[in-house]
């Protein structure tokens, strides 16, 4: 298998407490991190370097997640925190500043995710109060808020937007017309469910699907990027140690079938798709990151065990995990 994963940059964040998220921007040149020390930091990491660009203070609790907006809107970063707030930060004249604060949740905001840029600036936020809010920028510094109450009883842990795919293929689209996107996102929560939400024609969000397979909290959901295939794919991971790959082939988008990627021995916290949607990175509570790929016969195979410190590959561990399955 060889050296599949090699560390090319180690960033000492100087955070004073646990790091909870680290996200690169659209180009892979800037790194945003957030921590229990209540701060959000931005680093320029080009060419293996690490230059602290911003140390953003404003949250009053641990910051769980950060999310970069598409660069067409400028340099914008959203963060969410245990302090029940979502803060949108923006770079103006080279300085990062808070540009908006959303405090419409009654409990910890656990996840933020920007909608595909095609829709405009829309941020979905999932909270432990069970609600999901959708912030839409309407201009002049104004954000319109829509809220889905009781989206997940006792808490929403993750939100992830479906890629912007026009129903039917791109070729069939009548020229010059506004593509009729259907906005969708997935959420996972403490009700052990993944729920799929769809924006109705009247602009209201309706639950479209309930995906049920996990037997414990759904910790993360990740809708796979579109690679031009008609299949939609979602990865989910849970407190129960299971990672499922959900696929939907039918045009109506309503028949989802789960496939167990693996049952880990510990909680699985995070799943992330590669940009080309062929590799899934799975982060487990045992502090292990594994990479998974679908083989030709449709089985998910662990291709690498990311050992962060050394960046080496341990094939034996990978095999061992498969045997466990």
């Amino acid at each position: 298998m060889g050296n599949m994963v090699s560390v090319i940059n180690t960033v000492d964040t100087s955070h004073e407490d646990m790091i909870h998220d680290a996200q690169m921007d659209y180009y892979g040149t800037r790194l945003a991190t957030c921590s229990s020390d209540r701060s959000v930091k931005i680093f320029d990491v080009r060419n293996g370097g690490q230059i602290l660009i911003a140390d953003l203070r404003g949250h009053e609790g641990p910051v769980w997640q950060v999310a970069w907006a598409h660069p067409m809107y400028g340099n914008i970063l959203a963060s969410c925190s245990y302090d029940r707030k979502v803060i949108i930060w923006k770079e103006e004249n080279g300085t990062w500043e808070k540009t908006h604060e959303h405090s419409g949740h009654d409990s910890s905001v656990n996840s933020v995710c920007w909608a595909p840029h095609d829709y405009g600036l829309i941020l979905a936020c999932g909270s432990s109060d069970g609600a999901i809010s959708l912030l839409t920028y309407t201009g002049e510094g104004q954000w319109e808020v829509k809220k889905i109450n009781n989206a997940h009883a006792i808490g929403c842990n993750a939100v992830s937007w479906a890629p912007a795919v026009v129903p039917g293929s791109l070729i069939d689209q009548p020229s010059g017309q506004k593509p009729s996107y259907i906005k969708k996102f997935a959420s996972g929560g403490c009700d052990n469910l993944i729920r799929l939400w769809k924006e109705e024609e009247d602009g209201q969000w309706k639950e479209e699907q309930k995906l049920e397979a996990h037997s414990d909290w759904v910790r993360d959901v990740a809708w796979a990027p579109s690679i031009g295939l008609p299949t939609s794919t979602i990865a989910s991971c849970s407190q129960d140690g299971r990672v499922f790959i959900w696929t939907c082939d039918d045009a109506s988008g309503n028949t989802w079938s789960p496939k167990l990627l693996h049952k880990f021995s510990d909680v699985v916290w995070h799943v992330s798709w590669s940009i080309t949607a062929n590799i899934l990175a799975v982060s487990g509570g045992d502090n292990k990151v594994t990479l998974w790929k679908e083989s030709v016969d449709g089985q998910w195979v662990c291709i690498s065990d990311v050992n962060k410190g050394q960046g080496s590959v341990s094939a034996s561990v990978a095999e061992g995990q498969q045997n466990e399955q």
Partner: protein
Amino acid sequence: MKLKEVDRTAMQAWSPAQNHPIYLATGTSAQQLDATFSTNASLEIFELDLSDPSLDMKSCATFSSSHRYHKLIWGPYKTDSKGEVSGVLIAGGENGNIILYDPSKIIAGDKEVVIAQNEKHTGPVRALDVNIFQTNLVASGANESEIYIWDLNNFATPMTPGAKTQPPEDISCIAWNRQVQHILASASPSGRATVWDLRKNEPIIKVSDHSNRMHCSGLAWHPDIATQMVLASEDDRLPVVQMWDLRFASSPLRVLENHARGILAIAWSMADPELLLSCGKDAKILCSNPNTGEVLYELPTNTQWCFDIQWCPRNPAVLSAASFDGRISVYSIMGGSADGLRQKQVDKLSSSFGNLDPFGTGQPLPPLQIPQQATPRSPGLPLKKPPKWIRRPVGASFSFGGKLVTFENIRIQPLQGAEQQQQYHVFVSQVVTEKEFLRRSDQLQQVVQSQGFISYCQKKIDASQTEFEKNVWSFLKVNFEDNSRGKYLELLGYRKEDLGKKHIKEEKQESEFLPPAAGTFNISISGDIDGLITQALLTGNFESAVDLCLHDNRMADAIILAIAGGQELLAQTQKKYFAKSQSKITRLITAVVMKNWKEIVESCDLKNWREALAAVLTYAKPDEFSALCDLLGTRLESEGDSLLQTQACLCYICAGNVEKLVACWTKAQDGSHPLSLQDLIEKVVILRKAVQLTQAMDANTVGVLLAEKMSQYANLLAAQGSIAAALAFLPDNTNQPNIVQLRERLCRAQGEPMPGHESPKTPYEKQQLPKGRPGPVAGHPQMPRVHTQQYYPQGENPPPPGFLLRENVTPSTAAQQPTPPGHMHTQGLPYPQPQPYQPAQQYSFGAGGSAAYRPQQPVAPPSSAYPNNPYLSPASSYPGQSQLYAAQHQASLPAPSPTASFPPPPSSGASFQHGGPGAPPSSSAYALPPGTTGTLPAGSELPASQRTGPQNGWNDPPALNRVPKKKKMPENFMPPIPITAPIMNLLGDPQSQMLQQQPSAPAPPSSQPSLPQPHLPGGQPFHSIQQPLGPAVPPPFSKPNIEGAPGAPIGNTFQHVQSLPTEKITKKPIPDEHLILKTTFEDLIQRCLSSATDPQTKRKLDDASKRLEVLYDKLREQTLSPTIASGLHNIARSIETRNYSEGLTIHTHIVSTSNFSETSAFMPVLKVVLTQAKKLGV
């Protein structure tokens, strides 16, 4: 936030953590009789269904029990029962009894639910705990210092942990250690706690603060630290929780004094050791951090005391509390609003009062004005400290370029005294998973750089696993070889040499036949048919003579006479002949004579696709060649079986139609795997190179599908970290939005300097740069309408591009906004511009040569409805189409039967190429009647098909094979206006065709008003050739304006329709300093002409002479850039010295360094001249 409630005065036990779904068991409490003083008791099981927003808990089963309970626990120990509910319910009763229930049987409704019971204890059993390491072990405590250890496997005989403590006291609490399995603790209201070691079978330590006020109501071990435990006191005078560490057992480590009155119960979260619940007689439920003493959360409760509190083992945020007002409430400590609760209360009220008129007053009650305003959103504030279970400790996220960002927080056990500084690192890793893919991609890149296409193709042929793969690579390879059409024919099984031999024989036969008979002959005017013909001939009545011949089935005579009778008669006669002739190959002959290859391609049996392709390869003019190949490919794709469908790829390769190749290949192959994409891209890249080399332009046209595939490919490369390679493969001369976006992303990912204090440069932003052009700029038509204002009105800087854009452009109008044509930045649409797939563009790859040399002039039709269409050179797409159209209509053939089978092409077809008439004798079945071809005017006077024949046309691919192609398109390259409709619709529809041509007609741009011809290069010749049977006299060979210019994009017909100016416009003189260029070049052409022997070369030269007019016009207009002009002078100087090799080198240099659109019109011509001069040695 309260989640659920059950109206019971009961003890409670959650199902074990393993169990899903979550159940809550309740057993009627022995402590307190409810208001009815009923002595009924029951054991019930409820399901915690959080997806149900109501406050009600779903009751699963009720078992009427004869016992009331002091303690109820649910152990995970697996009895032999089946069912989804696991474990065992263990109840402590009033009379010293311990009862084991099978919860699965309770849920199933069984009557026999008791597994076992034992009444060994004296007095009520208030304390029970399951050993978490050995779940079959249960400890119980009762009065008189009684402690028993029960083995569920052997329930009859309990053990004791050691001798009873003295004096005898009630055991109120008992707990197994969470770290060490043989350690047990017990506590009593007297305030003492005892720790037992079961291995030693004795108490090892006694814990007491000697205050005599600790009345232990609760005992719990630290979930993580083996030596720590907490004790709670229910004494109102000392309502505290004491934290003890057995290593310092003299006094409590910490005392939590958060309750005002005695504490009735505590529960320590197993999920987070910093969360300890306590409830007391002050009616509070508190969540504190026992390690600091801080109160983290106070649950919103009613005013009743709670006597039992439990964490849900499975859902760490959930807890339940049983209160003396007869209710068990389930809470989340994560906060949230309590809308559900209110709703339930309202429901209850209205259901109790019924109809809102409970007293029958006839007046409904006014609407309820309950707490909603009184408690305006008073959600319980969440825990001050986030619970451990929501603190994500690990994460790995992919980012662009195949990078994986990971972080970790390895917990270091804080050691006493030693402050260990933890460093918080983020790692950026490169993930490479597709080594083979990268290797092949690298190989391909090298081939492109080294131009070693032929050997690459050969390697691919050798390595081919399938015949089809081999064919594809063979076809691709041919593109780089001389005489590609001939080679194609060979690949199809038609060797030119063989054909040649046959022709020689044929010619010999003809020469024997042709010499006119000497001597006298008799002119008979008898009454028989001969006589009648003679009479008609004598009177000059060719028509009648031909009719008579036809009538008498003397076809050869008829045709010969018709020739003498003129074009019109010949045409008529041919028609009549074809109508009469029923032979199998008539249709082929018809097609050959009428030059209606479309007929063949359209109606041949698809089993004969090879033959049809061979015919096209043999006969089709360069400009229609690719269209015909395309057409055949399209038919194969849409009509043929799956086997034939893939063969369409070969047709598209012949046509040089990359876009269609992509479409066809994609259909046949699974393109999702990187290697299968690599398979496709290899072919596509090679084909594009071929097209580039042979046609000197248009290879850069990137269709929607190709753009899709190429960006997919580049994305894959990028995802493997090969950003430079991704950039190299990404077509660089296209406005396909996905490619433009990806290019920008790749460039920036590569580490291009950060914009620093400027706003970022993105392709999106480019849209807002109107570059001084008035009018709105087409933006994102998809943009939501809401973004109509500036993003940061207060800022001095321009707002981010996305926002600015939408100030002017609403989604409905954006798409129609005309973009200034040729404006590069406006075309960099970041969105996949929805483009109908336009077959028209396929022709841009066509072999039609003239298009290749047309200057790429931006044409600005204000009426164009598709300003953003990124396709290049629509003009180049017309030749094939107009030819087909013209042919179809002029030939006026009867509608072809689609099912008619098509015979293999006649070998006689080659006669056109070689200028010799005749049919091969060897294949008589397909042979043309010798006279037919032999007497065609085209055969001798007007060797049209010969002159334009694929092998010998001056723009024949091999001849221009090595036109160096500038790799990069200039930044300011301006594509002309697009094709507005799929070409296929137009083939039979002259009207729409004209409409379509209207905007694209290359009207001379105002900057060059004096160029009437170059923009219609050779418009006529093919038109003329196409109508050899028409009324017009065959144009003389030397007539220059109809001579030699191949690839006419637009036929005469349309020129007239459009009333384009065809009259001469006086031209400016060429500036003196450049006059030398003209004289040198013309002189060279003349020299070549005088020493050239074969007509092909002469023709080429004639044509070149004419086509260099474009250059002269540019000189006149002084529009040439100085570098090119000086380069041309260098060439002229090398011509003077007859150093043509040097001239060619300079030529290559100019072409490779100059603006493509500026030189494409004349540089290839110049190369032809130089090459000829070198060859002829003039």
